[in-house]
């Protein structure tokens, strides 16, 4: 069964007919073609690689249906920074070597961007606890913590 969905993604409106059982993450990746949002677990919401912003709030897009996003605004990793620019987090992740394979990175950046809005001056411990919804297999997390700390400093300027 199909249903229409109207959703704004990274500032562009999409009106699409989708199967009602389609997951939001599949809609973003397959229908809209924004493949920066990844799937790392079997739609159980544990790995966090699919994290996007829904009306500014970080959510796991594998835990929602596309039709539930009707009338809402979504930001994905492709829309984290204005075109041609980089977010302080993206710069800090590069500078601190906070990614290796990069598969989890988009989800972590989206989660961290929301976190730093709520807590602009976090301790390392607060950063580590803010990251428990994102699994990373390569980095051991330490460089990620440093990068988020650096980005926080930059964003407070």
């Amino acid at each position, binding site marked *: 069964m199909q249903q229409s969905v109207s959703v704004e993604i990274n500032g562009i409106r999409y009106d699409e007919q989708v*199967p009602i*059982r*389609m997951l939001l993450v599949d809609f973003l*990746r397959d229908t809209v073609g*924004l*493949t*920066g*949002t*990844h*799937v*790392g*677990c*079997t739609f*159980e919401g*544990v*790995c966090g*690689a699919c994290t996007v912003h829904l009306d500014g709030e970080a959510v796991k897009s594998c835990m929602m249906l596309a039709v539930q996003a009707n009338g809402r605004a979504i930001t*994905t*990793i*492709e829309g*984290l*920074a204005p075109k041609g620019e*980089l977010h302080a987090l*993206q710069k800090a*992740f*590069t*500078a601190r*070597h906070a*990614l*290796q*394979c*990069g*598969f*989890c*990175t*988009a989800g972590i*950046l989206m989660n961290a961007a929301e976190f730093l809005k709520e807590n602009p001056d976090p301790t*390392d411990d607060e*950063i*580590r*606890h803010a*990251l*428990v919804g*994102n*699994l*990373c*297999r*390569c*980095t*051991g*997390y*330490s*460089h*990620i*913590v440093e990068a988020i700390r650096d980005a926080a400093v930059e964003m407070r300027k």
Partner: protein
Amino acid sequence: MGHPDLNWVGRELNRKEDLRLTTGKGQYFGDIKLQGALHLVFVRSSRAHALIKRIDTAAAKAMAGVFAVVTGAELKDKLKSLPIPVVVPALPARYPTFWPLAVGKVKFHGEPVAAVVAKDCYIAEDAAEAIEIEYEDLPYVAGPEEAMKPGAPILHPGWDDNKIFELGFTGGATPESVAQNETEVDRLIREAPVAIKRRFKVHRTGVTPMEPRGAMANWDPSDGMTCWVTTQRPHIDRLALAEILDIPTNQMRVIAPRDQGGGFGVKAPFYREPILVAFMAKHLGRPVRWQETREEHLMCVSQERDQIHDLEVAANKDGKIIAVRDRGLGDVGDGCEGVYWGFLMPFLGSALLPNGYDLPRCDIKLKCYVTNKSALSPARSFGSFATRFAMERMVDLVARAVDKEPADVRRLNLFTQLPYTTATGVYLDSGDFLKVFDTLTAKIDLKKFRQEQADARSKGRYLGVGFGVGAELSGVASAVLVPMENQPGFGAATVRIDPRGNVQIFEGDAPLGQGHETTFAQVAASELGIEPEHITVTTGDTGTTPFGSGTIGARGGSYTVSAVANACRHLKTKMAKILAHDLKLDASPADFDFASGMVTYRKEPSKQKSFRSLAERIIMAPLNLPAGETAGLEYTAFFEAEVPMICFSAHACVVEVMAQTGQFKILRYVTAEDVGKMINPAIVEGQVQGGVVQGLSNTMFEEFVYDDNGQQLTSTFESYKMATAADVPHVEVTDACTPCPHTPLGTRGLGEGIPGPVPGALTNAVCDALTPFNVDIIELPLRPNRIWQAIREAQSAKRAS
């Protein structure tokens, strides 16, 4: 040849990969789609061990959007079964016959039994649900001890028992020399002032990457087959797929996606699933893709370790170990997996058991059995995670027996004279183990810590320190890899300089996050005297890259990068010769420097030409070349060191244990590494941080659990617990490097073995903290309940005595 401009080597250059990966522009397997591609879904066994009595696919076949449903019985005569030589080690073992889908019986919970190909994955999943399979259960073979019992159910038809592999690693080539060695070790153990025996058990765990597996195939009647596979060894996959599908190799191309979401060994085997994907693409004349789910992944791959070691050592009163006897036992699952067959990990683990310790007399034997679990697949610290744990715990037990500082006993037993060949035949080429270990103990300030520990203990707090070391492979030499995996070990790279003075590097291995694009560019930039931004690296496409056996065993920093350097040096010689000829200089190529984008005659620096215009002259205007010289600037170098090489690291862990609950906190985790000449220190540190945390996560959290009927209970990240950021410490990484004399730049490969010393260091720390209770932990995982139980047992034993 002039002095290479080493400016770019040794610098923390930001990675070239990161711009696309931080902006969502990576090209992973899941992001590559072909128009009209169909989706394949596997139906996997719900039983651990059963005969397949009936499969009813009628309802699935009748569903709209379903293109094909296939079972093992239908497939069996249409393609070759494994084993095939290219993915079979040159080791004496029994290699089970298998097809991509189970034929006749299933041997583990999760084995592919049937497959559906449909318009999209939603329809394919629906159709898969509609397939009915009737099984007749057989008794579950739960572990090697059950598998070896007389009368145990036999897994593989035609076998007379369940033993897949058995090897003695010591004592020489003749039965007489082996028997003599056994007798001598036995005598030493009987007569030594200190003799200790323990049974060490390491559970089933591994290093699952964040990106699951996938395969997509497209058949074209003129070009043949193109397969996109998440893989560490595209060139081996190409040879194997061509043979099984009976397609000439010139019509078989395998592409490892440019970006891959981690591998750590898991993507190194030749698996059964891509075979079926390629077969169905040819059969249907449509592109077919399979994207593994996390559930499938955790059921079927990423499972390693799972060894038991009955280890005995004999030592002198000073703690010097004089003899070792080990009887290893491997639970390798069903063993149906190309290249590794489940047993290759325990095999190497036993070979690496002596580690960096001077153990002149060893008697080491291993037996591996097939069981009703998924085949072991490789994970970083390949096979040796278990043997490192056993040996490191044993060193601490020796220290306790002779009442000495465990760090001193390690120092006493570490090799001081390299090169050396261990009793198991592992060649340790170079390095300074004591320098690394002393750097480590200085960093943790061991003396001061022992004082703090004593003070804390007097206040009822239990602090402890533990150590572990790792002499690990730095690349895998042909001398090792040909017998072990029937594959060459050389590193290969093509360097192509274009007429604009820009450079392309082609690598046949397939990196998965290690930063090859950056480190290879740093090396080529240093060699050629240009900027890394003028260098591009292409990897993993068998249509464009030179043959390589894959991204395994820390090959990048040892073998492949050396091929890059040698290819650059070859091209520099050519460029210098032609420039000397053009400038009418009676000069040798060594008289020219390549630096800052210029090629300069050192004796008369005004005689120079830009790198770019010299490249343009040689490629675009190949006139008046020196006699015998040809146009073009492209070279493929194959690097093989004259000996196998190692890197070395030492780890220390400091913990506080709560004796009432068994809970513990890691206060510090410190490492010291010898990676030879470092190319990019940030990338080296990243490898260590990540490798240590994988080791901690394996030691404390991760465990694949099968219930009494062989049902796999840990196929989600809810049940298979991986460390989060809040669970682990920052790792203090220290360098103690000695350049490797066998590589052109002095580099060593690092990465593969990093988790190895972790379980020993952490468990030794916990046991050290609990010295007043005399706690002896010999089994993993290391969790509070086990520690608490060990404390209770030690207390009741004390009361009883």
